[in-house]
């Protein structure tokens, strides 16, 4: 089984969070999974980790539509942070809007982090692929 140290799930919908966690634990060995209700609490935590020079998450699942700070606002702030390693960010959204896909592409071109766009519901095979990339 693959091993992933730290995973962040940023989503305000508890069912989605439950689903992602359930699949993740069945395809990989995850040491710690952190949940965040919106972008603001997630980015605050990441800032803190950067400041403390602590271990950053290897994988982030990011919802777009969230209160307080949405997924796009989170990405805007995130790519500005001084992080050397490439973090895998998986956008998981119920949107199938081309505009949102284009926006994800725009972010991709602006950063060295690995950004991927996934539509809900996320499938087991997709999460398997994602964990494969991360654990390599």
């Amino acid at each position, binding site marked *: 089984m693959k091993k992933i140290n730290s995973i962040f799930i940023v989503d305000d*919908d508890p069912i989605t969070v439950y689903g992602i966690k359930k699949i993740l634990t069945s395809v990989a060995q995850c040491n710690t999974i952190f949940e965040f209700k919106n972008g603001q609490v997630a980015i605050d935590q990441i800032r803190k980790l950067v400041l403390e020079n602590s271990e950053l998450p290897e994988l982030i699942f990011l919802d777009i539509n969230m*209160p307080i700070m949405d997924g796009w606002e989170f990405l805007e702030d995130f790519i500005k942070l001084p992080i050397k390693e490439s973090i895998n960010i998986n956008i998981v959204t*119920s949107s199938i809007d081309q505009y949102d896909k284009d926006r994800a592409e725009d972010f991709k071109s602006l950063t060295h982090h690995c950004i991927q766009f996934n539509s809900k519901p996320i499938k087991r095979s997709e999460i398997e692929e994602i964990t494969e990339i991360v654990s390599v």
Partner: protein
Amino acid sequence: MIKNTPILSNEFLIKQLPISTVFINRESRVVLASDKWALDFNFQGKDYIGKTIYELFNKTSDKWARILESCFDGKFPEPEIESTTVPNSREKWFEWTSSPWYDEQENIIGAIVQAEDVTDRVLTEIKLEKLQFLQKETTEHGKLGTWEYNKQQDSFSCSQMIRTIIEVDEDFDLNIDNIVEFYKTGYSKNTISMAIYNAREKNIPFKEKLQIVTANGNEKWVNVSGMPLIKNGEYVALLGIVQDITDYVLKEQETKDNEHLLKTLINNLPLQIYIKDIQSKKLLANKSELTFLGLKDENDIIGKDDFDLYDKATAQKFRDEDVEVMISQIPMLNKELSCRNADGSTTTFLTSKIPLKGENGEVNGIVGISMDISEQKQKEQELKDLISVTSSQNKKLINFAHIVSHNLRSHSANFAMLLDFLAHEKDKKERSRIMEMLSESSKNLMETLHNLNDIVAINTESNIIKQKVNLNTNINKVLSKLKPQLDKNKATIISEISNDVNLNVVPSFLLNILENIVSNAIKYRKPQLDPVIKFSLNYVQNYTVLSIEDNGLGLDTKKYGHKLFGMYKTFHGNPDAKGLGLYITKNQIEAMKGKISATSKVGSGSTFNLYFNEKN
């Protein structure tokens, strides 16, 4: 006496000859002369005998030498006419006749020269020549032909020009009767026949402008006049003058046609057209211009300037433009001008002013062309408004569709995922947990559909029936409904609204809006501060503005302002927040043709301004 000159016994007779005569010897000297000669040439009382003819006439001309020489040779030279200027007298013309002078032995001893004063004859001839020349030129240039009918001889004669006009050659036999046949049948022929008859029978002269048809079938216009000649009270002849005025008439007609065309065009163009002189006084104004100025007759405007027609400021503006165009000689094209009418409305023109130049390039006025584009302007504005409304509606619709699709999709995605888990899950406990989540999801979906339905209902035209309601009554209704929460949080309500304020609203919308904002103020209060909610009223343009101010958390309007009234946007992480309240509020107030705005700062409360449209 002079040597070698025979003495003339009849000298006495010669002196009395009634004709100017001079006897000249072979040395060209005067031997004898008649007194008339001395008189004619002003030699009276002067010593002219024995002097040469050249000395006397101060002439050195070879011609005289030749004439005398030929006389001395026994020849008779042709008479010569010469003008002589005699001192103290006008120019005179003399005909000189020279002949040889013989003595008794038939020897030529000199020349006899006679001078006849032909001044009158010469002057008459010159005058006649001039007249003939003038007549020829006049008839040719003026295409004037003359004819004459002699009654006694019953003869008819005419000038060449008559034949040219009626296009017949010299062989054609014209007479007083058939000349009438060349006039156009109808008015022209009747008129000329009558005129000639009256001239011959009643001695009445005539002058008419008539049409003829030439021998070649061409139609021409002529001025024809006739004058009966009367001798001793009796009609003897009839003189006629015919002038071909076709070119003139046609040109005149063409000019008239052009003028008529231009006038018709100018008057019927949907543009205001005028011409002003250098002082900006109107010289011409078309119908549109008159109608615009409320005038009927062109004479009411001719000679007037803009100061007579517009208020001073407008007139000065127009005058300045006129002067600018006239000085620069550069046309002013399609300039938009607005002028205020007496009734307060504004008329917008598209005006062009073009300098009017004379033959030598000097400016002597301007041509103005104005088009009233007020209607287009208004349409343009209406269109802009419509586009703005449409685009905002469109934006709303897209936003709504987006939200709907997003929300429904997120629920259906959850269903799909949970059902997939359920199919593979064997653990009983886990299965019942999934089932729980499924039923929760289904409840959420129902609620979402319910909310969406509410929003659709707000925008349904038939639900928007406004009526006058008292504002305070409605505020109180909401406050009593929210009393438990208000009391629980020790909220203070301050209202500056007097009891007589009524609003034209959809009553249920008003209640909903007030409830939403007041409960938001409680929901987002500051943890350590008792909430204070203040109501105040203002009037801005067509709106009655109700402001609701709180001392709550506030929010960063720079960051979230554009999302504040969006659907499913919440900003404070409050678990009660559904992100729907303000979206519905905004929809409701906009459905009543009003608007909503908010001012807020993090930590210092928020103010919501509700603009109620009282007119529409």
